[in-house]
Protein backbone atom coordinates (compact mmCIF):
# COMPACT_ATOMS: atom_id res chain seq x y z
CA UNK A 1 0.00 0.00 0.00
CA UNK A 2 1.29 3.49 -0.88
CA UNK A 3 2.66 5.53 1.99
CA UNK A 4 2.32 9.31 1.80
CA UNK A 5 4.53 11.78 3.63
CA UNK A 6 3.87 15.51 3.55
CA UNK A 7 7.16 17.21 2.74
CA UNK A 8 5.83 20.75 2.57
CA UNK A 9 2.52 21.89 4.01
CA UNK A 10 0.62 24.98 2.83
CA UNK A 11 2.72 27.35 4.91
CA UNK A 12 5.92 25.67 3.80
CA UNK A 13 4.96 26.03 0.11
CA UNK A 14 4.14 29.72 0.61
CA UNK A 15 7.43 30.32 2.38
CA UNK A 16 9.37 28.52 -0.37
CA UNK A 17 7.70 30.56 -3.10
CA UNK A 18 8.35 33.84 -1.28
CA UNK A 19 12.02 32.90 -0.90
CA UNK A 20 12.26 31.99 -4.60
CA UNK A 21 10.68 35.35 -5.47
CA UNK A 22 13.35 37.21 -3.46
CA UNK A 23 16.12 35.12 -5.02
CA UNK A 24 14.80 35.84 -8.52
CA UNK A 25 14.79 39.57 -7.77
CA UNK A 26 18.27 39.46 -6.29
CA UNK A 27 19.77 37.51 -9.19
CA UNK A 28 18.11 39.68 -11.82
CA UNK A 29 18.38 42.97 -9.92
CA UNK A 30 14.65 43.65 -10.24
CA UNK A 31 12.00 42.65 -12.77
CA UNK A 32 13.22 44.63 -15.78
CA UNK A 33 12.86 42.42 -18.88
CA UNK A 34 11.72 39.48 -16.77
CA UNK A 35 8.95 37.06 -17.82
CA UNK A 36 7.69 33.91 -16.10
CA UNK A 37 6.81 30.81 -18.15
CA UNK A 38 5.11 27.91 -16.37
CA UNK A 39 5.22 24.37 -17.72
CA UNK A 40 1.74 22.88 -18.02
CA UNK A 41 0.03 22.15 -15.79
CA UNK A 42 1.49 22.46 -12.27
CA UNK A 43 4.23 24.86 -13.35
CA UNK A 44 1.66 27.32 -14.69
CA UNK A 45 -0.14 27.58 -11.35
CA UNK A 46 3.19 28.07 -9.56
CA UNK A 47 4.31 30.68 -12.11
CA UNK A 48 1.14 32.66 -11.40
CA UNK A 49 1.80 32.47 -7.64
CA UNK A 50 5.40 33.53 -8.16
CA UNK A 51 4.28 36.36 -10.45
CA UNK A 52 1.88 37.61 -7.80
CA UNK A 53 4.66 37.64 -5.19
CA UNK A 54 7.08 39.47 -7.50
CA UNK A 55 4.42 42.08 -8.24
CA UNK A 56 3.72 42.49 -4.52
CA UNK A 57 7.37 43.04 -3.69
CA UNK A 58 8.29 45.24 -6.67
CA UNK A 59 4.92 46.88 -7.38
CA UNK A 60 5.24 46.04 -11.07
CA UNK A 61 3.24 43.42 -13.00
CA UNK A 62 5.43 40.57 -14.26
CA UNK A 63 4.11 38.86 -17.43
CA UNK A 64 3.21 35.18 -16.94
CA UNK A 65 2.83 32.65 -19.79
CA UNK A 66 2.33 28.92 -20.19
CA UNK A 67 4.18 26.39 -22.28
CA UNK A 68 2.86 22.93 -23.21
CA UNK A 69 5.63 20.46 -23.95
CA UNK A 70 3.58 17.52 -25.29
CA UNK A 71 4.64 18.16 -28.89
CA UNK A 72 8.30 18.41 -27.81
CA UNK A 73 8.55 15.16 -25.84
CA UNK A 74 11.31 12.73 -26.78
CA UNK A 75 9.36 9.64 -25.71
CA UNK A 76 6.49 9.73 -28.19
CA UNK A 77 7.16 6.16 -29.37
CA UNK A 78 6.77 4.86 -25.84
CA UNK A 79 3.14 5.89 -25.61
CA UNK A 80 0.49 3.68 -27.15
CA UNK A 81 -2.05 6.42 -26.68
CA UNK A 82 -0.81 9.89 -27.34
CA UNK A 83 -1.00 12.34 -24.51
CA UNK A 84 -3.57 15.12 -24.69
CA UNK A 85 -2.11 18.29 -26.14
CA UNK A 86 -2.38 21.47 -24.10
CA UNK A 87 -2.11 25.02 -25.32
CA UNK A 88 1.04 27.12 -25.25
CA UNK A 89 0.00 30.63 -24.28
CA UNK A 90 2.74 33.24 -24.34
CA UNK A 91 0.96 36.62 -24.50
CA UNK A 92 4.34 38.35 -24.92
CA UNK A 93 7.46 38.01 -27.03
CA UNK A 94 10.32 36.10 -25.42
CA UNK A 95 12.82 37.80 -27.74
CA UNK A 96 15.64 39.27 -25.66
CA UNK A 97 13.77 38.58 -22.37
CA UNK A 98 15.05 36.99 -19.19
CA UNK A 99 12.81 33.94 -18.99
CA UNK A 100 12.24 32.25 -15.66
CA UNK A 101 10.93 28.78 -16.44
CA UNK A 102 8.78 27.43 -13.62
CA UNK A 103 7.90 23.81 -12.87
CA UNK A 104 6.64 21.95 -9.84
CA UNK A 105 9.07 19.00 -9.72
CA UNK A 106 12.51 18.68 -11.32
CA UNK A 107 13.29 15.02 -12.05
CA UNK A 108 15.11 13.71 -15.15
CA UNK A 109 15.41 17.11 -16.82
CA UNK A 110 13.74 15.93 -20.03
CA UNK A 111 10.67 18.09 -19.45
CA UNK A 112 12.91 21.14 -18.97
CA UNK A 113 14.84 20.36 -22.17
CA UNK A 114 11.53 20.07 -24.06
CA UNK A 115 10.30 23.35 -22.53
CA UNK A 116 13.50 25.14 -23.59
CA UNK A 117 13.04 23.81 -27.15
CA UNK A 118 9.45 25.10 -27.10
CA UNK A 119 10.58 28.53 -25.91
CA UNK A 120 13.34 28.81 -28.52
CA UNK A 121 10.73 28.09 -31.21
CA UNK A 122 9.01 31.29 -30.09
CA UNK A 123 12.06 33.53 -30.11
CA UNK A 124 15.54 34.01 -28.65
CA UNK A 125 15.49 34.99 -24.99
CA UNK A 126 18.59 36.63 -23.50
CA UNK A 127 18.68 33.89 -20.88
CA UNK A 128 16.58 31.12 -19.35
CA UNK A 129 16.61 30.47 -15.61
CA UNK A 130 14.86 27.60 -13.91
CA UNK A 131 12.73 27.75 -10.77
CA UNK A 132 11.24 24.56 -9.27
CA UNK A 133 9.33 23.92 -6.09
CA UNK A 134 10.98 20.51 -5.55
CA UNK A 135 14.20 19.02 -6.92
CA UNK A 136 14.04 15.25 -6.46
CA UNK A 137 17.25 14.36 -8.29
CA UNK A 138 17.82 11.53 -10.84
CA UNK A 139 18.83 13.73 -13.76
CA UNK A 140 19.23 12.14 -17.23
CA UNK A 141 20.46 15.43 -18.70
CA UNK A 142 22.95 18.08 -17.54
CA UNK A 143 20.28 20.44 -16.22
CA UNK A 144 20.16 22.17 -12.84
CA UNK A 145 17.72 24.63 -11.29
CA UNK A 146 18.67 28.21 -10.42
CA UNK A 147 15.98 28.46 -7.74
CA UNK A 148 14.80 25.48 -5.67
CA UNK A 149 12.04 25.48 -3.07
CA UNK A 150 13.15 22.23 -1.47
CA UNK A 151 15.70 19.53 -2.33
CA UNK A 152 14.20 16.10 -1.67
CA UNK A 153 16.45 13.06 -2.18
CA UNK A 154 14.21 10.29 -3.52
CA UNK A 155 14.50 6.81 -4.95
CA UNK A 156 13.38 6.26 -8.56
CA UNK A 157 10.38 4.27 -7.40
CA UNK A 158 9.08 7.08 -5.22
CA UNK A 159 6.85 9.84 -6.54
CA UNK A 160 6.56 13.51 -5.65
CA UNK A 161 3.17 15.16 -6.03
CA UNK A 162 2.33 18.84 -5.65
CA UNK A 163 -1.33 19.27 -4.69
CA UNK A 164 -3.43 22.28 -5.71
CA UNK A 165 -6.83 23.42 -4.47
CA UNK A 166 -9.84 24.29 -6.65
CA UNK A 167 -8.41 27.80 -7.25
CA UNK A 168 -5.11 26.26 -8.41
CA UNK A 169 -3.28 27.45 -5.30
CA UNK A 170 -0.57 25.02 -4.12
CA UNK A 171 -1.60 23.34 -0.87
CA UNK A 172 1.11 20.77 -0.11
CA UNK A 173 3.91 18.61 -1.46
CA UNK A 174 3.59 14.88 -0.88
CA UNK A 175 6.17 12.10 -1.17
CA UNK A 176 4.50 8.86 -2.26
CA UNK A 177 6.46 5.70 -1.39
Amino acid at each position, binding site marked *: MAENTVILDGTGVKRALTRIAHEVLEKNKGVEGLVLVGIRTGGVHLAQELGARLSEIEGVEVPVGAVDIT*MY*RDDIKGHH*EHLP*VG*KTELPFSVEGKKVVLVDDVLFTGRTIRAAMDAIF*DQGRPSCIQLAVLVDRGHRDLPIRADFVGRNVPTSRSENIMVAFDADNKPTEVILQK
Partner: protein
Amino acid sequence: MGFRHKDIIALKDLTKEEIELLLDTADNLSEINQRDIKKVPTLRGKTVINLFYEASTRTRTSFEIAAKRLSADAVNITASTSSVVKGETLSDTAANILAMKPDIIVMRHSVSGAHEYLAKRVSCSVINAGDGAHEHPSQGLLDMLTMRQKFGKLAGLKVAIVGDITHSRVARSNIYGLTTMGAKVFLAGPPTMMPPGIERLGNVTVCKDMREAVDQADVVMMLRIQLERQGKTLLPSMREYSRYFGLNPTVLALAKKDAIVMHPGPINRGVELASSVADCDQSAIMKQVENGVAVRMAMLYHVCGGEPVE
Protein backbone atom coordinates in the same frame (compact mmCIF):
# COMPACT_ATOMS: atom_id res chain seq x y z
CA MET B 1 -8.74 8.75 -22.57
CA GLY B 2 -6.58 8.04 -25.58
CA PHE B 3 -7.04 7.49 -29.26
CA ARG B 4 -6.80 3.80 -30.07
CA HIS B 5 -7.32 3.67 -33.83
CA LYS B 6 -4.61 2.81 -36.34
CA ASP B 7 -6.58 4.49 -39.12
CA ILE B 8 -9.17 7.23 -39.50
CA ILE B 9 -11.52 6.09 -42.25
CA ALA B 10 -14.88 7.53 -41.17
CA LEU B 11 -16.39 9.66 -38.43
CA LYS B 12 -19.04 6.95 -38.16
CA ASP B 13 -16.34 4.77 -36.51
CA LEU B 14 -15.49 7.32 -33.82
CA THR B 15 -17.11 7.82 -30.43
CA LYS B 16 -18.14 11.17 -29.01
CA GLU B 17 -15.07 11.15 -26.72
CA GLU B 18 -12.73 10.40 -29.62
CA ILE B 19 -14.18 13.22 -31.72
CA GLU B 20 -13.91 15.53 -28.73
CA LEU B 21 -10.25 14.53 -28.23
CA LEU B 22 -9.43 15.26 -31.89
CA LEU B 23 -11.19 18.64 -31.70
CA ASP B 24 -9.45 19.56 -28.41
CA THR B 25 -6.08 18.61 -29.84
CA ALA B 26 -6.72 20.60 -33.02
CA ASP B 27 -7.87 23.60 -30.98
CA ASN B 28 -4.65 23.54 -28.95
CA LEU B 29 -2.44 22.92 -31.99
CA SER B 30 -3.92 25.90 -33.84
CA GLU B 31 -1.62 28.10 -31.74
CA ILE B 32 1.38 26.65 -33.62
CA ASN B 33 -0.04 28.00 -36.89
CA GLN B 34 0.05 31.56 -35.51
CA ARG B 35 3.74 31.50 -34.60
CA ASP B 36 6.65 32.92 -36.56
CA ILE B 37 8.28 29.48 -36.53
CA LYS B 38 5.31 27.23 -37.39
CA LYS B 39 6.93 23.93 -36.58
CA VAL B 40 7.19 21.43 -33.73
CA PRO B 41 9.41 18.32 -33.69
CA THR B 42 6.67 15.83 -32.76
CA LEU B 43 6.68 13.59 -35.88
CA ARG B 44 10.34 14.05 -36.76
CA GLY B 45 11.52 11.07 -38.78
CA LYS B 46 8.00 9.97 -39.77
CA THR B 47 7.03 9.76 -43.42
CA VAL B 48 3.57 10.77 -44.65
CA ILE B 49 2.56 9.86 -48.20
CA ASN B 50 -0.30 11.85 -49.71
CA LEU B 51 -1.78 9.52 -52.31
CA PHE B 52 -4.38 11.43 -54.29
CA TYR B 53 -6.37 9.60 -56.95
CA GLU B 54 -8.65 12.61 -57.37
CA ALA B 55 -7.80 16.22 -58.04
CA SER B 56 -7.48 18.30 -54.89
CA THR B 57 -5.65 21.45 -53.98
CA ARG B 58 -7.10 22.44 -50.64
CA THR B 59 -7.10 19.07 -48.85
CA ARG B 60 -3.77 17.84 -50.20
CA THR B 61 -2.00 21.12 -49.42
CA SER B 62 -3.61 21.21 -45.99
CA PHE B 63 -2.42 17.66 -45.16
CA GLU B 64 1.03 18.47 -46.54
CA ILE B 65 1.34 21.61 -44.43
CA ALA B 66 0.02 19.76 -41.38
CA ALA B 67 2.63 17.00 -41.78
CA LYS B 68 5.43 19.50 -42.28
CA ARG B 69 4.40 21.57 -39.26
CA LEU B 70 4.78 18.42 -37.17
CA SER B 71 8.24 17.86 -38.76
CA ALA B 72 7.17 14.74 -40.70
CA ASP B 73 8.44 14.24 -44.26
CA ALA B 74 5.53 14.59 -46.67
CA VAL B 75 5.60 13.09 -50.17
CA ASN B 76 2.83 13.76 -52.68
CA ILE B 77 1.71 11.24 -55.27
CA THR B 78 -1.02 12.18 -57.70
CA ALA B 79 -2.62 9.41 -59.73
CA SER B 80 -2.37 11.29 -63.00
CA THR B 81 1.43 11.36 -62.77
CA SER B 82 1.90 7.91 -61.24
CA SER B 83 1.88 4.31 -62.47
CA VAL B 84 -1.89 4.26 -61.92
CA VAL B 85 -2.23 5.58 -65.46
CA LYS B 86 -0.30 2.51 -66.59
CA GLY B 87 -2.95 0.26 -65.09
CA GLU B 88 -1.47 -0.54 -61.67
CA THR B 89 -4.05 -1.77 -59.14
CA LEU B 90 -4.57 -0.11 -55.74
CA SER B 91 -3.25 -3.25 -54.08
CA ASP B 92 -0.01 -3.17 -56.08
CA THR B 93 0.41 0.56 -55.57
CA ALA B 94 -0.06 0.03 -51.83
CA ALA B 95 2.48 -2.82 -51.73
CA ASN B 96 5.04 -0.69 -53.53
CA ILE B 97 4.46 2.33 -51.33
CA LEU B 98 4.61 0.15 -48.23
CA ALA B 99 8.02 -1.17 -49.30
CA MET B 100 9.27 2.40 -48.88
CA LYS B 101 8.25 2.23 -45.19
CA PRO B 102 5.87 5.16 -44.76
CA ASP B 103 4.23 5.74 -41.37
CA ILE B 104 0.98 7.24 -42.64
CA ILE B 105 -0.79 7.12 -46.01
CA VAL B 106 -3.28 9.93 -46.58
CA MET B 107 -5.46 8.89 -49.50
CA ARG B 108 -8.21 10.38 -51.62
CA HIS B 109 -10.02 7.97 -53.90
CA SER B 110 -13.11 8.18 -56.06
CA VAL B 111 -14.33 4.75 -54.92
CA SER B 112 -16.22 4.55 -51.62
CA GLY B 113 -14.59 1.97 -49.36
CA ALA B 114 -11.17 2.11 -51.05
CA HIS B 115 -9.60 3.20 -47.75
CA GLU B 116 -10.98 0.29 -45.80
CA TYR B 117 -9.59 -2.02 -48.47
CA LEU B 118 -6.19 -0.34 -48.22
CA ALA B 119 -6.12 -0.16 -44.41
CA LYS B 120 -6.60 -3.91 -44.16
CA ARG B 121 -3.60 -4.52 -46.42
CA VAL B 122 -1.02 -2.16 -44.97
CA SER B 123 0.65 -2.01 -41.58
CA CYS B 124 0.98 1.77 -41.56
CA SER B 125 -1.84 4.16 -40.66
CA VAL B 126 -4.34 5.20 -43.31
CA ILE B 127 -6.22 8.51 -43.19
CA ASN B 128 -9.19 9.07 -45.44
CA ALA B 129 -8.97 12.37 -47.32
CA GLY B 130 -12.26 11.65 -49.11
CA ASP B 131 -13.60 8.44 -50.62
CA GLY B 132 -16.23 8.63 -53.32
CA ALA B 133 -19.59 9.65 -51.89
CA HIS B 134 -18.82 7.96 -48.56
CA GLU B 135 -16.96 10.15 -46.04
CA HIS B 136 -14.52 13.03 -45.71
CA PRO B 137 -13.65 12.87 -41.99
CA SER B 138 -11.07 15.67 -41.91
CA GLN B 139 -13.59 18.05 -43.49
CA GLY B 140 -16.24 16.97 -40.98
CA LEU B 141 -13.85 17.59 -38.09
CA LEU B 142 -12.73 21.00 -39.32
CA ASP B 143 -16.36 22.00 -39.82
CA MET B 144 -17.20 20.91 -36.28
CA LEU B 145 -14.15 22.74 -34.88
CA THR B 146 -15.23 25.93 -36.66
CA MET B 147 -18.74 25.62 -35.17
CA ARG B 148 -17.42 24.82 -31.69
CA GLN B 149 -15.06 27.81 -31.73
CA LYS B 150 -17.95 30.10 -32.65
CA PHE B 151 -20.62 28.71 -30.30
CA GLY B 152 -18.52 27.03 -27.61
CA LYS B 153 -20.37 23.74 -28.02
CA LEU B 154 -21.96 21.47 -30.61
CA ALA B 155 -24.78 19.93 -28.58
CA GLY B 156 -28.11 21.56 -29.35
CA LEU B 157 -26.93 23.54 -32.38
CA LYS B 158 -29.25 23.64 -35.37
CA VAL B 159 -27.21 22.94 -38.48
CA ALA B 160 -28.76 23.24 -41.94
CA ILE B 161 -26.98 21.32 -44.71
CA VAL B 162 -28.20 22.30 -48.16
CA GLY B 163 -27.43 20.84 -51.57
CA ASP B 164 -26.55 17.50 -53.14
CA ILE B 165 -26.80 15.29 -50.06
CA THR B 166 -26.65 12.01 -52.00
CA HIS B 167 -23.24 12.53 -53.53
CA SER B 168 -21.69 14.57 -50.73
CA ARG B 169 -19.08 12.87 -48.55
CA VAL B 170 -18.82 16.17 -46.67
CA ALA B 171 -22.53 15.99 -45.77
CA ARG B 172 -22.23 12.35 -44.67
CA SER B 173 -19.24 13.00 -42.37
CA ASN B 174 -20.96 16.05 -40.91
CA ILE B 175 -24.18 14.15 -40.32
CA TYR B 176 -22.36 11.35 -38.46
CA GLY B 177 -20.12 13.72 -36.52
CA LEU B 178 -22.72 16.33 -35.62
CA THR B 179 -25.41 13.87 -34.56
CA THR B 180 -22.85 12.00 -32.43
CA MET B 181 -21.99 15.29 -30.73
CA GLY B 182 -25.66 16.12 -30.08
CA ALA B 183 -26.37 18.71 -32.78
CA LYS B 184 -29.63 18.75 -34.75
CA VAL B 185 -29.15 18.42 -38.50
CA PHE B 186 -31.69 19.72 -41.03
CA LEU B 187 -31.20 18.71 -44.66
CA ALA B 188 -32.55 20.38 -47.78
CA GLY B 189 -31.94 19.78 -51.46
CA PRO B 190 -33.62 18.75 -54.69
CA PRO B 191 -35.49 15.43 -54.34
CA THR B 192 -33.14 13.96 -56.96
CA MET B 193 -30.25 14.68 -54.61
CA MET B 194 -31.77 13.48 -51.33
CA PRO B 195 -31.09 9.83 -50.45
CA PRO B 196 -34.23 8.01 -49.29
CA GLY B 197 -34.22 6.95 -45.63
CA ILE B 198 -31.47 9.36 -44.55
CA GLU B 199 -33.61 10.32 -41.51
CA ARG B 200 -32.74 6.93 -40.08
CA LEU B 201 -29.21 8.19 -39.31
CA GLY B 202 -30.50 9.81 -36.12
CA ASN B 203 -31.24 13.41 -35.26
CA VAL B 204 -31.72 14.34 -38.93
CA THR B 205 -34.73 16.12 -40.39
CA VAL B 206 -35.32 16.31 -44.14
CA CYS B 207 -36.97 19.57 -45.20
CA LYS B 208 -38.83 20.05 -48.46
CA ASP B 209 -38.11 23.75 -48.49
CA MET B 210 -34.66 25.20 -47.92
CA ARG B 211 -36.21 28.01 -45.87
CA GLU B 212 -37.50 25.51 -43.34
CA ALA B 213 -33.97 24.16 -42.81
CA VAL B 214 -32.37 27.61 -42.56
CA ASP B 215 -35.07 29.04 -40.26
CA GLN B 216 -33.46 29.81 -36.86
CA ALA B 217 -30.36 27.82 -37.80
CA ASP B 218 -27.03 28.43 -36.04
CA VAL B 219 -25.07 27.15 -39.00
CA VAL B 220 -25.93 27.12 -42.70
CA MET B 221 -23.68 24.73 -44.58
CA MET B 222 -23.93 24.94 -48.35
CA LEU B 223 -22.63 22.10 -50.49
CA ARG B 224 -20.95 22.43 -53.85
CA ILE B 225 -22.98 21.42 -56.85
CA GLN B 226 -20.66 19.25 -58.86
CA LEU B 227 -21.22 20.89 -62.20
CA GLU B 228 -18.85 18.43 -63.84
CA ARG B 229 -20.91 15.46 -62.69
CA GLN B 230 -24.46 15.40 -61.34
CA GLY B 231 -25.27 18.92 -62.47
CA LYS B 232 -26.06 17.78 -65.95
CA THR B 233 -28.40 14.91 -65.16
CA LEU B 234 -30.10 15.65 -61.85
CA LEU B 235 -31.05 19.29 -62.28
CA PRO B 236 -33.17 21.03 -64.89
CA SER B 237 -30.93 24.09 -64.83
CA MET B 238 -28.41 25.87 -62.64
CA ARG B 239 -30.66 28.91 -62.61
CA GLU B 240 -33.53 26.92 -61.14
CA TYR B 241 -31.22 25.29 -58.55
CA SER B 242 -29.89 28.65 -57.52
CA ARG B 243 -33.42 30.01 -57.15
CA TYR B 244 -34.65 27.22 -54.89
CA PHE B 245 -31.50 26.03 -53.13
CA GLY B 246 -29.02 28.88 -53.42
CA LEU B 247 -28.18 30.93 -50.34
CA ASN B 248 -28.81 34.64 -50.78
CA PRO B 249 -29.11 37.43 -48.17
CA THR B 250 -32.93 37.06 -48.01
CA VAL B 251 -32.79 33.37 -47.10
CA LEU B 252 -29.85 33.88 -44.75
CA ALA B 253 -31.91 36.48 -42.86
CA LEU B 254 -34.15 33.61 -41.70
CA ALA B 255 -31.29 32.07 -39.73
CA LYS B 256 -30.26 33.30 -36.28
CA LYS B 257 -28.58 36.70 -36.23
CA ASP B 258 -25.20 35.28 -35.23
CA ALA B 259 -25.45 32.29 -37.60
CA ILE B 260 -22.42 31.35 -39.65
CA VAL B 261 -22.25 30.33 -43.30
CA MET B 262 -20.03 27.42 -44.24
CA HIS B 263 -18.94 25.82 -47.50
CA PRO B 264 -16.34 23.08 -48.10
CA GLY B 265 -15.15 24.81 -51.28
CA PRO B 266 -14.50 25.41 -54.03
CA ILE B 267 -17.54 27.71 -54.32
CA ASN B 268 -19.67 28.01 -57.43
CA ARG B 269 -20.39 31.69 -56.94
CA GLY B 270 -23.93 32.56 -57.95
CA VAL B 271 -25.03 28.91 -57.92
CA GLU B 272 -25.19 27.53 -54.36
CA LEU B 273 -23.89 30.71 -52.78
CA ALA B 274 -24.43 34.34 -53.73
CA SER B 275 -21.16 36.24 -53.87
CA SER B 276 -22.39 38.73 -51.29
CA VAL B 277 -23.05 35.88 -48.84
CA ALA B 278 -19.74 34.13 -49.52
CA ASP B 279 -17.89 37.32 -48.59
CA CYS B 280 -20.16 38.59 -45.80
CA ASP B 281 -19.19 38.90 -42.12
CA GLN B 282 -21.12 35.75 -41.29
CA SER B 283 -19.05 33.68 -43.70
CA ALA B 284 -16.75 31.24 -41.87
CA ILE B 285 -15.30 29.78 -45.06
CA MET B 286 -11.75 31.06 -44.58
CA LYS B 287 -11.85 30.02 -40.93
CA GLN B 288 -12.73 26.50 -42.14
CA VAL B 289 -9.64 26.44 -44.35
CA GLU B 290 -7.49 27.74 -41.48
CA ASN B 291 -8.86 25.12 -39.08
CA GLY B 292 -8.19 22.43 -41.70
CA VAL B 293 -4.46 22.50 -41.01
CA ALA B 294 -4.90 22.18 -37.22
CA VAL B 295 -7.43 19.35 -37.57
CA ARG B 296 -5.15 17.42 -39.91
CA MET B 297 -2.22 17.93 -37.53
CA ALA B 298 -4.37 16.42 -34.77
CA MET B 299 -5.31 13.45 -36.98
CA LEU B 300 -1.68 12.76 -37.96
CA TYR B 301 -0.58 13.08 -34.33
CA HIS B 302 -3.16 10.68 -32.95
CA VAL B 303 -2.86 7.92 -35.57
CA CYS B 304 0.92 7.95 -35.57
CA GLY B 305 1.86 5.49 -32.87
CA GLY B 306 -1.70 4.59 -31.99
CA GLU B 307 -2.57 0.94 -31.49
CA PRO B 308 -5.47 -0.77 -33.24
CA VAL B 309 -8.45 -1.64 -31.09
CA GLU B 310 -8.54 -5.37 -30.41
